[in-house]
């Protein structure tokens, strides 16, 4: 295994950052501080962290409506993200995007997206930009299993494959398309099998296993960076919460949810691995979790104390302020 103890601790911490950020956002929703749809990523942390830990700061990431994890894994600051969820002026998107459209362009995180499957062709476009500029930046597009049914999946991956672009398509197959079990509405069990239509490698991986995700994504990113073209990765995963907060979840057996939460939690799974390998002591574990708790407490304080956007900002950012041509 090529993983260093240091990298493992960073990835472990990042998974906790996602988990605790979201659980706090959930709590803030019940308190009324966070409003609007909140699509929880909890349970899928190993996918975002395993993939993004292979990326450079200048690599591109495009997300989904469930993208808190993608942003945090790419390096976004939790206090600015929390402020965005609060609708504050200090948020990553100045209070104009919210949870579903969260983005941090300073990290080349080109945005979550409220439309299923809408990031696939733009990720291909960002990869085309890298190729045209002659840089070796890689683009990663996360999308759900529902997106694999959309035409944009076919068109976006088709173009990426045609031009052998440096892009990694990561399907987070959490097995439910909103409320519908995937296999009620799909023919192929594995989304990775669809890669054959585009003559690119397709790999299915256990999305609850951080090490596996990290290694499979590492190969795909390396291939993309070296000019070998796209890869389609399917990460088999599960969301611990409903489609969005307030979902009554009558479509998922309680025992199934309990099984994944208890035995397939990516954080506790990796925690055990690290302990077994001697990469993490109990003291270090406690310290990491406490530091992350402090970070999230600070994020909430920052969000609470931040001002709401001023009314004049409602009309800014529609078009660029200066429209004069050079």
């Amino acid at each position, binding site marked *: 295994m090529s993983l260093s103890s240091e990298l493992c601790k960073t990835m472990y911490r990042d998974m906790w950052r996602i988990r605790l950020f979201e659980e706090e956002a959930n709590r803030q929703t019940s308190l009324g501080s966070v409003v609007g749809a909140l699509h929880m990523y909890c349970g899928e942390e190993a996918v975002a962290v395993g993939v993004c830990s292979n990326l450079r700061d200048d690599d591109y990431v495009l997300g989904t409506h469930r993208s808190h994890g993608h942003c945090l894994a790419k390096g976004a600051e939790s206090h600015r993200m929390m402020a965005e969820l609060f609708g504050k002026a200090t948020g*990553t998107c100045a209070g104009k995007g919210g949870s579903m459209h969260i*983005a941090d362009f300073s990290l080349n995180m080109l945005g979550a997206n409220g439309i299923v499957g809408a990031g696939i062709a733009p990720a291909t476009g960002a990869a085309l930009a890298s190729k045209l500029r002659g840089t070796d930046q890689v683009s990663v597009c996360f999308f759900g299993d529902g997106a694999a049914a959309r035409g944009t999946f076919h068109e976006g991956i088709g173009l990426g494959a045609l031009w052998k672009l440096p892009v990694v398509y990561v399907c987070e197959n959490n097995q439910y398309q909103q409320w519908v079990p995937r296999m009620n509405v799909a023919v192929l069990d594995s989304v990775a099998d669809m890669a054959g239509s585009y003559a690119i490698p397709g790999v299915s991986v256990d999305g609850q296993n951080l090490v596996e995700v990290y290694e499979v994504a590492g190969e795909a990113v390396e291939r993309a960076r070296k000019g070998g073209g796209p890869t389609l990765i399917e990460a088999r995963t599960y969301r611990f919460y409903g489609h969005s907060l307030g979902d009554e979840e009558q479509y998922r057996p309680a025992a199934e949810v309990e099984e994944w939460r208890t035995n397939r939690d990516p954080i506790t799974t990796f925690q055990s691995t690290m302990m077994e390998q001697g990469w993490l002591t109990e003291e270090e574990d406690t310290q990491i979790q406490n530091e992350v708790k402090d970070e999230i407490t600070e994020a909430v304080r920052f969000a609470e104390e931040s001002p709401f956007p001023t009314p004049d900002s409602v009309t800014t950012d529609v078009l660029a302020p200066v429209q004069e041509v050079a």
Partner: protein
Amino acid sequence: MRTLTFSEALREALHEEMERDETIFVIGEDVITHGGPYKVTEGIAERFPDRIFETPIAEAGIMGVGVGAAMAGMNPVVEIMYMDFVTCAMDEVVNQAAKMRYMTGGQASVPMVIRLPCGVGRLLAAQHSQIMESWFMHVPGLQVVVPSTPGDAKGLLKSAIRSPDPVLFFEYKRIYTSRGQVPDGEHIIPLGQAKICRDGEDATVVAIGPMVQKSLEAAVLLEDDGYDVEVVDARSLSPLDSETICESVSRTGHAVVCGEDSSFAGAASEIAAMIGENCFRDLNGPVVRVGSPHVPMPFSSELVKHVVPEVANITEAVSRVMM
């Protein structure tokens, strides 16, 4: 001054801009093999072989790639073979390109031009003849530009390419072969500026696209009736140069708005409403729209005649508002 066709003027703008800025690339169906259906992209593959991408038939993919490349710092010029096909990429235009800057609090810029051959050309009927400028005028974050002459086509396309925000660039198919003067050298027309094409004192005709030329012809005929008609080419529908339009209408006291698209909820309707709101006290008659009836484009040339507005419709409308 030299004359060029509308197609040649667009091609010249593309070549000059691609020479100037290497972040510009062209993407679309048949843009290499055939030079596009109207030959606008002809010669680009020979001169800039690495910056033109001929695609499979995948409008959503093409548009999405354009959006992503633009967000990542490039300047794509997307060609949609017939504007009707943009309906296959509406999410990419409306939910992605238009919204990115706003949703991200100003972080994103989508400097993309979407070229849209539109309107009646050869008799291609209902799925290859639409215009629908107002669909895009209605979406904040998009700019809508409609040149009516080769000179404006060149100057406006260059501005559109240099704009940091998405531009829907409407090219009326039946004026691709029309000729007009195009200045030598750098020729730029800023977006958002209407043009007074003919001065007049009695009535203002605000026209869009090919209706500009027809309005100028109508103005000559109306001289015989003793009417001195001013013709304003809107040129840019969003942002709309309401200042130039209102100044003209307030001076003449009469307004007719002409577009080739259906008047119902069309671009002309927005302009007419804007005039009504701002110039009511200066108006001496109703604001009248000239456009096509609210029907799909038929096939038979005998039917098309009753759809596309002609000079007579404009003269009739001006006479009506002057009564």
